[in-house]
């Protein structure tokens, strides 16, 4: 039995699916962010896997993942800051209840 | 700058200066506002008079060029957009008309309340657009001024109007904007075919000279531009903004709108649609001719059963403006001259009508003719004015309506095609229907017994109202009594247009 490219793609795919599901169904904004992280992570895996299998001598995929992680961190930090701020004003993090600015 | 040596630019500068002056007026007292507005209107009137003098002088001196007082300033070089100015006879008389109506309009809104300063501000912005439109010969500038004239309408009706004003203001603005959307497509289309060698231009004279718009494109662009202007000219079936808009608009705005703004439609139709696309005009003219023929009779019939004074007048405008477009589509000098005379005549007499209606409404607080009667007793001056306006409208010789209508009918009947002649005869029927609705109103409103006892205490016109209406009545009478003066100014202007049409017809015949 060999570890083929496909075998690495499957967990990443499932992880992405879980992220999608979570993103779509959760109401808590933090949970949504968590789902987002899952999706990002699954993409990172793909970059790395393709880099490893298709271009073993190069490092573009790896670097891309590296930057993605950095940006994800920044993004998460900022998003969480906003969420906390929203929470402070609205006393809630339920995405369906934060609709004061709608229409 | 060289352009400031051209008198035409002052037709835009003066209203703008007036606006500036108004902006510095205090919000409290109305005196300063009135003074500035009257000053602005008077200067415009004087300028218009001087322009007529200049024009006559130039023509008298044998200047037969198509446009006089031409000058241009490049505005945006990459697209070859210029501030190109120039007038021919038609523009001159239209400017004169606008000046008259602005003058009368200022006096008609003498007691404007609330926010007189803001009212006059928008009012003069509107006139800026109108004057700007008539002095430009560059498509882009024309279109810009056209829009400048449209937008203040919304606020003027929406803020100072009466009745269902929000609806009317919205409807009027949207429909006219819809028209200008067509127009803009048309203008862009014209621009990109304005020249055979890729030196695209916006200048009407150059476009006409190049005559480069392919026939297949003309067939698209002509309806676009014609409908675009036709909406403003209240062509059936795009006229429905007119009754509601006029009914809600304040007096002076109704005057300026029906008196001048609707004329932009007719003016644009021949200056842009027909002049630049003669081939399509020849091919498609009959469709629009039928529509305008319908407008004439249809508007007159509709006016017969209305009970609101302004609605009656608005439908009558549909009929009369239909006649303008009808005549324009007859493609001969006589009929087109008639069209311009009709614009003048309709502008003045509708303005007079709206002024009088506004004054009556200001006293009786109703515009429903069923609630009024015997006003001739109570306010003889306004009554006589109304009868005169009515008689002008139904074509009494000696007043302007007759001259205009007869020139149109005679000119239209000179058309060699039997279809056009039959349509002309159908259109002449409107003179009877016009008589019916005008006399109906006069009989109901002015004659007979006083319907409402409260009306007995009402007063007759005040001095500024007398001045406002007298200006218009005199103008109507002057056109009616000395038409040849105006005909001589106007008719030569159509030679290039008719020439273009004939060339196109000839070329089509050869091919």
């Amino acid at each position, binding site marked *: 039995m060999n570890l083929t490219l496909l075998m690495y793609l499957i967990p990443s795919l499932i992880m992405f699916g879980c992220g999608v599901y979570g993103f779509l169904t959760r109401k808590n904004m933090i949970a949504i962010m968590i789902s987002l992280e899952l999706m990002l992570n699954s993409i990172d895996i793909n970059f790395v896997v393709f880099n490893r299998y298709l271009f073993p001598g190069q490092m573009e995929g790896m670097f891309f993942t590296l930057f993605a992680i950095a940006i994800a961190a920044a993004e998460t930090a900022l998003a969480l800051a906003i969420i906390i701020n929203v929470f402070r004003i609205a006393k809630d993090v339920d995405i369906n209840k934060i609709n004061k600015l709608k229409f | 700058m060289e352009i400031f040596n051209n008198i035409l630019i002052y037709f835009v500068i003066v209203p703008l200066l007036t606006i500036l002056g108004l902006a510095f007026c205090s919000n409290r007292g109305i005196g300063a506002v009135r003074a500035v507005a009257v000053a602005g209107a008077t200067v415009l009137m004087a300028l218009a008079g001087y322009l007529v003098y200049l024009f006559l002088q130039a023509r008298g001196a044998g200047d037969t060029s198509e446009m006089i007082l031409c000058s241009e300033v490049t505005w945006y070089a990459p697209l070859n957009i210029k501030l190109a100015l120039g007038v021919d006879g038609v523009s001159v008389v239209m400017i004169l008309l606008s000046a008259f109506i602005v003058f009368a309009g200022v006096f008609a809104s003498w007691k404007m309340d609330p926010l007189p300063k803001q009212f006059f501000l928008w009012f003069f912005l509107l006139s800026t657009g109108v004057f700007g439109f008539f002095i430009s010969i560059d498509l882009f500038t024309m279109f810009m001024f056209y829009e400048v004239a449209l937008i203040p309408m919304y606020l003027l009706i929406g803020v100072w109007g009466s009745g269902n004003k929000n609806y009317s203001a919205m*409807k009027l603005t949207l429909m006219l904007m819809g028209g200008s959307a067509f127009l803009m497509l048309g203008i862009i289309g014209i621009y990109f075919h304005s020249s055979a060698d890729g030196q695209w231009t916006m200048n009407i004279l150059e476009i006409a000279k190049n005559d480069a718009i392919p026939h297949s494109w003309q067939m698209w662009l002509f309806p676009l531009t014609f409908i675009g202007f036709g909406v403003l000219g209240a062509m059936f079936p795009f006229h429905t903004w007119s009754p509601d808009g006029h009914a809600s608009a304040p007096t002076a705005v109704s005057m300026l709108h029906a008196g001048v703004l609707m004329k932009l439609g007719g003016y644009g139709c021949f200056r842009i649609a027909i002049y630049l696309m003669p081939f399509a005009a020849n091919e498609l003219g009959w469709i629009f001719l039928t529509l305008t023929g319908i407008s004439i009779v249809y508007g007159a*019939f509709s006016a017969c059963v209305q009970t609101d004074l302004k609605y009656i007048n608005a439908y009558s405008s549909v009929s009369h403006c239909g006649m303008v477009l009808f005549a324009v589509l007859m493609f001969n000098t006589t009929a087109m001259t008639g069209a311009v005379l009709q614009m003048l005549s309709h502008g003045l007499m509708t303005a007079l009508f709206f002024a009088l209606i506004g004054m009556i409404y200001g006293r009786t607080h109703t515009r429903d003719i069923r609630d009024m009667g015997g006003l001739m007793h109570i306010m003889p001056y306004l009554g006589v004015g109304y009868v005169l306006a009515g008689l002008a409208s139904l074509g009494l*010789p000696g007043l302007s309506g007759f001259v205009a209508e*007869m020139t149109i009918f005679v000119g239209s009947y000179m058309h060699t095609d039997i279809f056009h002649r039959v349509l002309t005869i159908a259109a*002449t029927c409107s003179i009877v229907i016009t008589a019916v609705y005008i006399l109906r109103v006069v009989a109901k409103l002015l004659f007979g017994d006083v319907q409402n006892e409260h009306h007995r205490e009402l007063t007759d016109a005040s001095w500024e109202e007398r001045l406002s209406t007298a200006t218009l009545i005199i103008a109507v009478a002057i056109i009616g009594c000395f038409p040849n003066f105006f005909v001589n100014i106007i008719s030569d202007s159509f030679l290039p247009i008719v020439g273009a049409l004939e060339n196109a017809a000839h070329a089509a015949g050869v091919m």
Partner: protein
Amino acid sequence: MPLSYTIAVIAIPLIMFLFLGLSGVKMGKKTTGIIGVIAMLITTILAYGVALTYFFGSSEGQIVDGVRKAVTVFNPDWLTFSDTLVVRMGIMLDPIAAMMLIVITTVSLMVHLYSLGYMCDHHGNAEKGFQRYYAFLALFTFSMLGLVVATNLFQIFIFFEMVGVSSYLLIGFYYTTPAANHANKKAFIVTRLADLFFLIGILILSFYTQTFDFFSNNVNGIIGMLDDPQASLAQAGTTTFMGCSAMAWALTFIFIGGAGKSAMYPLHIWLPDAMEGPTPVSALIHAATMVVAGVFLVARLFPMYVLVQGTMDIICVVGAFTAFYAAAIACVQSDIKRALAFSTISQIAFMMTSLAVSSADGQLIEIHGGYGLGFMASMFHLFTHAMFKALLFLCAGAIIHAVHSNENDKMHGLHKYMPITSIAFLIGCLAIAGIPPFAGFWSKDEILVAAYEKGIGWGIWMTMVAGMTAFYMFRIYFLIFHWKKHEVHTEHEPADQPWTMTLPLIILAAISIVAGFVPAAKLVTWDGTPLHTQLNWTIAGTSVLIACIGIGLAYKMYYKENDLPERMANSCRGLWTAAYKRFYMDELYQFITHKVIFQGICKPIAKFDRAIIDGFFNMLAEVTNRTSFGIRKMQSGSIQGYVYFYLIGVLLLAVITMACVLL
């Protein structure tokens, strides 16, 4: 007197109109009236001078080879349509124009003078609007004068409109009364409808002739063109539309225009109602001058009408029928002014018929070695009729002023109280009945001669109508002045009116007696050639006899109070009622205008406009609005909602791509 003084004849009334209309309010009422009368007097003197100079002078190339030519005094351009089509405002004198000048100014002067008394109450206080009244009278006089001296067809049209408006304003003088209010509207609209046809006729005609002028200096005018076979008019004769030549269409339309003004059946309905105006106005406008404008128009274009026999036949039939129809109605009317109005219609129809019987088979009929006797007779009758009908109306006005009613049954037996009026009225009646030597006899006799020459049937028909005329006029006369003793209804006893009103009666009565001796045949002929007429005693005798029978019958029935009229009315009640109701023409018009045009056309169109056209644009707005509100839900602000859309989009794209790639 130079013919160019005609300008003053026309200008003075115009100036008076402007002067009285603008500054009359500032002046005293009587003052305006007196100024008006004086101005009119000057106008009249000038008009007489000009007309007599034209008729009897021989200078300025008036007479060429024994033929009196039309003289164009001046003719400036007024409105330029194209190089060839120019409307000019000019003055042209020819026999009929000169004659009309006399008629108009005479009657107008009489009316001006008469109104000084009539428009006052019994204490001599002028009515409200006195100044306005005189201004309008001046306007009308100006318009009518302008009409008759017109140099071109379009000028006639212009003044047709002007007289229409003057008539409108004067009928509606008592604008607060509903009847006057309806009547002026009706008069204006009906004549306007006719004018529409006139206009169409002008359009058709000018399309071929390329000119409006009758006679023109440089190019041939409409009439001058007739001699020239190459002229474009000949083309109008050959171009056919629906089986008739364009010229026939044009002339028929122009005749309809004239018929509207001259109240020919079926466009007569406005004239009886027009009697709502002040009586002097009826005398001036609706009896003597404006209503004959139609006759004048046909007479003006007579050389053309002669060429188109079909149109002439139409005019003939319409005229003969109207003459009879109006006479029949006049026999039963109880309102004195209405009866006179129908009498007017009938007499004008006489003139029309007379014009039309002048030709047969496209040729003028030769009578007494001359041509166009009918034309001459018509114009002559126009002249005499204007005088005696004005007289009758002014008498009626005097009576109405005395008893304050228009109805016969308020009058009766006035002879004792108002002898001068009575005699004047009698003279008028004798004149219109055609008893020699009064004016009507001479002119009517010529008409009958012309009619008999055209065909024996026409002659008998017209003679019968002449007999009816005698009957109904004397019916009125006897009913007013005799019948039974007068019962005084008002606070005063009726009496002859002040001199301002009586003097015009006397003058007009005098004219009515002698007008028949005017040598019209020498002066007023269609081509200016004098005619030699002689009295045809067979015809004249017959017509006088018939008139006498009519008068005798009227005497029998109406001189003394008796029940004969009642019994006769009862014996054919249906016919009597129908005639009394004017054969329901008004009801028919009422039905057409209100039910068909108003309810059937205008209302549906207005509804259509609001519901369909406006509804369509409102629908556009509504749909846009609703769609916006609908899709606003999609823009929910919920991220998850967006992601769903996004994902669905992505998945669809992916599936499509895969399908394309894999399949």
